[in-house]
């Protein structure tokens, strides 16, 4: 650390779950800490802080990212979506119901990131089968379930969505 360097707050302006947010942040602040500590959006979880476990997965301009590996200043003029936003919009209500029915979570700590990643797969590949689901979720660690229930829940949602007239 260099104590001599002046600490300069950077103004950022972004959308979070559809709401405009204006903030002054330190350049070193990562997006996960910004969401959790500045905006109190604690559904984004921090598991490893080095981009491996996937618990902090959020959407930035429609793409899923590890919010622990992105700086808050990088989201200037971006649209950020968290689990709270996806829950309130109803976008993943069916996926969440499937997780609930299949008990696809135990402690629930990985769940917001897991849902983000699963929804990303289902948007890109609505027809995804078990192998593809397992592959796509491989960047999201779960220590409780052993994954099978999660794969089942995502697969069931994929099937239901495929059968549903769009």
């Amino acid at each position, binding site marked *: *650390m260099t*104590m001599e360097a002046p600490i300069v707050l950077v103004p950022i302006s972004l959308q979070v779950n559809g709401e405009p947010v204006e903030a002054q942040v*330190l350049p*070193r602040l990562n997006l996960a800490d910004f969401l*959790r500590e500045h905006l*109190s959006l*604690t*559904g*984004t*979880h*921090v*598991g*490893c*802080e*080095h981009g*491996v*476990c996937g*618990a902090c997965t959020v959407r930035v301009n429609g793409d899923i990212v590890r919010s622990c590996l992105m700086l808050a200043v990088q989201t200037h003029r971006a649209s950020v979506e*968290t*689990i*709270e936003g996806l*829950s309130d919009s109803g976008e993943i209500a069916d996926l*969440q119901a499937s*997780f*609930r*029915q*299949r*008990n696809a*979570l*135990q*402690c*629930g*700590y*990985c*769940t*917001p990131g897991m*849902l983000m990643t699963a929804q990303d797969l289902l948007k890109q590949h609505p027809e995804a089968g078990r192998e593809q*689901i*397992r*592959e796509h*979720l*491989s*960047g*999201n*660690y*779960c*220590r*409780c*379930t*052993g*994954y*099978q*229930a*999660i*794969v089942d829940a995502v697969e069931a949602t994929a099937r239901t969505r495929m059968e549903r007239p769009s």
Partner: protein
Amino acid sequence: MTTAATHSERLSVLDRPNSYIGKTVPRPNIERLVQGRGLYVSDMVLPRMVQVVYLRSPHAHARIIEIDTVAAKQVPGVIAVVTGKELSAVITPWVGVLSHMKGLKSAPQHAIAIDHVCWQGEAVAAIVATSRAVAEDAAELVAVEYEELEAVTDMRTALDPGTPVIHASLGDNLAFERHLDAGAVDQAFAGSDEVVEADFVFGRHTGVTLEPRAVVADWSAAEARLTIYQGTQAPHMVQNIAALHLGLQDSQVRVVCKDVGGSFGIKVHVYADEMATYALSKLLRRPVKYVADRVESFNTDIHARDHLCRGRIGVKRDGTITAFEIDDLTGIGPYSMYPRTSAIEANQVVNLVGGPYVAKNYRARTRVVFQNKNVMCQYRGVGHPVACSVTEGLVDLAAAKIGMDPVEIRRRNLVPDDAYPCASPSGLKFELLSHHAALNRLMAMMDYDGLRAEQAALRKKNIHRGIGIASFIEITNPSAAFYGVGGARISSQDGVAVRMDATGAAICQTSITEQGQGSESLTAQIVGSVLGVPMERVRVILGDTDNTPYGGGTWASRGAGIGGEAALQAAKALRSNILDVAAAILQSTPAELDIVNNAIVNAGDGSTRIELSELARIVYFRPDTLPPGIQPELMATRHFVPRDYPFAFTNGIQASWLEVDTDTGFVKLLKHWVVEDCGTIINPQLVDEQIRGGVVQGLGAALFEKCIYDERGQLTNANMADYLVPMSGEMPDIDIGHVVSPTAETELGAKGAGEAGTAGAAAAVANAVNDALRPFGATITEIPLTPQTILTALRRI
């Protein structure tokens, strides 16, 4: 499902219309978690709360010469920088021993090291600041002068005369030793046709809870009371330990446990940095939050299973196993962990080896040694995975030696299903197990003969697949025999209070805790079934020492069996009280009435007499209308602890089907099966998911997970990129079957299921890998089975 025993008359309370017992229903607390609206300790913020960061020793073994905190204290935002010596003014050290672990010794451990650091990662100073980032900045300015000491890292030489003694006051590095000699072992080996021996090596690994350990400690100087928010499995234990070492009464400490981001035994202990955080809150008179980062988690969350175990088995040509013998060695780090001690795992290994089998001749020695690595202690399965891997590895080696099928040798040696009650050579008492029923069920589920044919056909194409089988026993529902008898203030009983509110809904307070297993669900299922109200009308409160009965919590597969029985008895008592009131109101008798679907009904024809909401209204708001002399008690509390058996043993069997790439050494898991007998099943889905999750943790140990230390005691892979855990892409589907042998010790009949998966998974995989490699004459008795280990055994590298 096979029912090995029936207790239909005893289960009558649960076998009611609309009973939730044996039904898959979603957990009531799950919605907030799928919406990301849980409350984990790491999410918590309190007024005036500050954050603590611990500066940790970079050396495995060193003397602290000097700590200079002046520069750090000048950083804007820093509240305090506190050394171990300064903190010792408010917290006393502890020694992790229990009297029933005869001879177990350990040295006093401080919340923050004073003078002497004993592992890389031990805290040497606390930096408290307005934010974690500021505290981390300041931590870099704390100057610590160390005198590095020789580190004791290799457990095999820890007891050698030339090896430095870590704690001079103890005289040597031996923490605990146990010998067992049952039957006539030498005679049995002499009378065997073959004796097979192998060295089993286990990789030290850890739980990797996805939420790191976290605590918020809030000392109220005005109330002289400490509130601890912590994701613990045992709130009353934490209450007692915190009070004891801070010089407080238990009643001055409240422990609150909200949502917990994974636990698996990692969060059943009290860690030095947590103790330091409680003490800092008292010292600074404000809330202090500590959240471990991932590097700290790897360096300070307890490790487990660092064992070297030499095993011997004697066998006759007809497959009869004559004797088992083990010589086990384990390194537990520099201290026996507090308060559960680090001798339990080795003790369990001695207790459990050979447990599923008839052989009565068994000799064992275990030695538990100190070393300058992170502490080891109880992690999911506690000793079971080691004992099971040694036992099942030896059984397979014996079978191979005499040319017998691995299933056949088990069939000939597993304790018969009609032999109960009986005891093991190590003295374990078995009430009722079902090894053969489980084996038969497994054979049917996996199509064993079909897989053998497939294996043979593929071998001709140079594809090497293997089948591995592992039978196991599991300790569940522990009585006071586990900790209480050794002097630990860790409760083995649990309590449940159930009351009916003024709308006829039930509120239930239980001393078991929830970390995602489904404690809340099983409690609501039992209470709802007994009371005759839907689960939605049962609210369960847990994890708060101010607001639940006193009890042990959730660990050692005890929640359903012990806490569930307390819930059952409490609900029965409340039901009886409700029927008494109803009889008075309706001028009937309790025997003529029942409660079904929120209403008092005629027991005979089921017709509704009065809604519970109406009964509650009368009781709470118009008691003047009740007959004279009636004082309704719409609240009942019951406690339960097993007394007949020290533990309710369960049993099961696992099988692995996998493929080994003999060019790369990679193992592909194709399928895994488990048949398990946990007695009465309360929620089939939750039981199966406990088993699956447990299996996958065992698969991680089998293939990936290892804390890799160098010779100086440096943990070289303390991050998630280098320490590998199972990912969804490489895990197989896991099929689960059940045999049901309820324990007669309780009306519920439930035994534990939380650790069964972990107990046998690695053994099944290791046996399957060796089965696949049999044409190459390679045998591996070491986990994790990394590509390097496999290629080395194949002499490819």
